[in-house]
């Protein structure tokens, strides 16, 4: 059994509340607090790690191992401790408690372009950034052409990067980081930036790294990317590792965390929703034929999906729809409420008010399994009003579906009832 490249034992990190957000102390604050502290000295001995309310554990007892060649996904909401964990792994900050062992260089795509200086040229920044990331000069010399080619900014290589477009800047920054060849690569949300072609390149680079036998830690909010690129994923919640499991299970667990009611999703508590926006999502529900909100539906009976939303002003050409995706990240279908031309004509202008768009999923269409529902509201090629790729998950039960007399799993996300005819061919 090979030695793991990363081994963490009960890694914990404590922060003082406000330490990260507030402006640093000024001497005046220090003088006042030290007077207070001097008074407290007599009542209580203060220690560096206490559990008083002014301290929080950003990470608590994280233990895991990563082997060579493994791609491990890390998912969790904002504030779950993902960034703190990556910072500890890349040695930017030390754990408060615990122990860890890392074999090899950690390359971080935590924030590409760190240390880029706007006044310096692309060429100069490659060397500077390379050195900051821990590359030797001779190593940068050797890979220079490759980096430039990867970044596709060869023409502007001697221009100060402050004149670069944000896309060029990013490509150059990523190109340097991608050529670091670390034993452990940490990738954090790089996929959220750059155009599709560039993202494809980044993903390709990541899988190359894994195939060369190095380890990749992949942090993302993009579940389909996590599902595509990782076999195993850990789920962080409020600083604790709540799960380490094969990725589909971990993603499923993550998506269901904190949902108020199974089979239903409300957005009213969601901090990302702008309440004054033109399109405000309200709820997404999975309903059985009796109209009850359920987490599990029966494939043979069919079910419906409804999306409730509020328009604050009239939108023309709006289409509201769903994506259905398996927990392995494959799309099953995409459907919009105005796919039907007659409905489109009727609702071409939707005035302000509350709406429900409901679709019927016919009986004998879906295979059994767990599915992810995504939501999209947009006008074709003009504007996207809302999108949530992982709004809700639910389970389809296949009792009574075609072929269930054989208790075997059927491949594929759909399990349609097809009209077979059997005849004997006479000779």
């Amino acid at each position: 059994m090979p030695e793991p490249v990363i081994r963490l034992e009960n890694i914990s990190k404590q922060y003082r509340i406000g330490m990260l957000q507030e402006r640093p102390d000024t001497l005046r604050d220090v003088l006042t607090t030290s007077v207070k502290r001097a008074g407290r000295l007599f009542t209580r001995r203060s220690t560096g790690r206490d559990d008083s309310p002014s301290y929080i554990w950003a990470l608590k007892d994280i233990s895991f191992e990563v082997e060579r060649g493994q791609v491990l996904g890390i998912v969790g909401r904002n504030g779950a401790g993902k960034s703190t964990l990556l910072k500890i792994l890349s040695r930017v900050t030390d754990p408060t408690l615990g122990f860890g062992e890392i074999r090899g260089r950690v390359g971080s795509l935590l924030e590409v372009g760190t240390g880029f200086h706007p006044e310096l040229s692309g060429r100069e920044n490659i060397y500077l950034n390379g050195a900051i990331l821990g590359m030797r000069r001779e190593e940068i010399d050797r890979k220079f052409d490759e980096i430039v080619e990867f970044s596709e900014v060869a023409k502007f290589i001697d221009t100060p990067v402050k004149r670069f477009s944000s896309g060029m800047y990013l490509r150059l920054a990523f190109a340097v980081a991608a050529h670091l060849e670390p034993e452990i690569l940490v990738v954090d949300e790089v996929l959220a930036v750059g155009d599709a072609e560039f993202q494809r390149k980044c993903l390709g680079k990541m899988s190359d790294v894994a195939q060369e036998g190095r380890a990749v830690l992949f942090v993302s909010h993009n579940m389909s990317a996590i599902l595509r690129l990782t076999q195993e994923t850990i789920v962080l919640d409020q600083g604790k590792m709540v799960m380490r499991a094969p990725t589909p299970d971990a993603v499923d667990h993550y998506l269901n965390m904190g949902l108020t009611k199974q089979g239903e999703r409300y957005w009213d508590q969601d901090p990302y929703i702008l309440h004054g926006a033109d399109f405000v999502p309200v709820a997404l529900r999975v309903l059985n034929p009796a109209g009850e909100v359920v987490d599990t539906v029966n494939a043979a009976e069919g079910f419906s999906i409804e999306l409730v939303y509020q328009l604050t002003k009239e939108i023309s050409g709006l289409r509201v729809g769903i994506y259905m995706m398996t927990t392995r990240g494959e799309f099953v279908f995409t459907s919009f409420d105005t796919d039907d031309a007659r409905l489109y004509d009727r609702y071409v202008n939707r005035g302000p008010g509350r709406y429900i768009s409901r679709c019927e999923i016919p009986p004998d269409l879906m295979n059994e399994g767990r599915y992810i529902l995504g939501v999209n509201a947009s006008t074709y090629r003009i504007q996207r009003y809302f999108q949530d790729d992982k709004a809700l998950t639910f389970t389809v039960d296949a009792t009574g579906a075609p072929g269930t007399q054989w208790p075997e799993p059927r491949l594929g996300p759909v399990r349609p009832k097809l009209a077979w005819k059997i005849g004997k061919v006479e000779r």
Partner: protein
Amino acid sequence: MTEITRENKDQTPVIFLRPAKGWLGLDLRELWRYRELIFFLTWRDIKVRYKQAILGVSWALLQPLLTVLIFTMIFGILLKTPSQNLPYPLFALSALLPWQLFATALQRSSVSLVGNANLITKIYFPRLAIPLSTVFAALVDFLVSFLVLLGVMIYYRHWPSLNNLWLLPIILLALLTALAVGLWLSALNVQYRDVQHMVPFIIQVWMYASPIVYPIDIIPAGPWRLLYGLNPMVGVIQGFRWALLGTEPPDMTMLISAGVVLILLVSGLYYFRRMEKTFADIV
């Protein structure tokens, strides 16, 4: 705390992640491994400083030249300050150069950690690389402006001599002084931004507390002179003038100055290393 040890079998460095604890010693080996980073940071500092400046690096020449012109007019011609039997411009410039080396290095190093916060919060490297590289960048400026001094020396027919070799340890002492104070101030500045407002003031007071515009002789010899020597720049400037122009050789003040620098440097390193672990969390 983090450290690297090399394994014999596969040459893969093993990094240990542990809670930070107290004094960890000065890991010179690690610093040496990061020498290229220090080089690139120094190079960036210099490059960026003169980029988009029409006069470019000639600012490093103009600055001491203009300052000496003002000093000569006010202190040399109007106030008739004694100048150890040297032409006043040469007298002032020979002190101004090591002083500017010190002042530039101190000023830049004290804000260096905060100025590089984006690096510190994202990437690991020995944090000492940052103040070190600013001190080195100041040295490059110094070498450029040294040309001005050479020009003025030749103008006044002061020829170089073997005694000039003493300049090297004295410049080193000036750098160490700047580094020592810079370590303290840069680490303090991470937590208390008051420091960066205090630095220009500190430098100004410090300049008048050093024998730049006036000769050291006006401080009475004896206990007062020894007290004066607690300012390490006194030894540096006195030594610099002596090594370059053959004024009276440094005395006890030099030893006191060197001693003070040593204490400041060791304590500065200690404080810096102790605070280093928290930079990323509080900067």
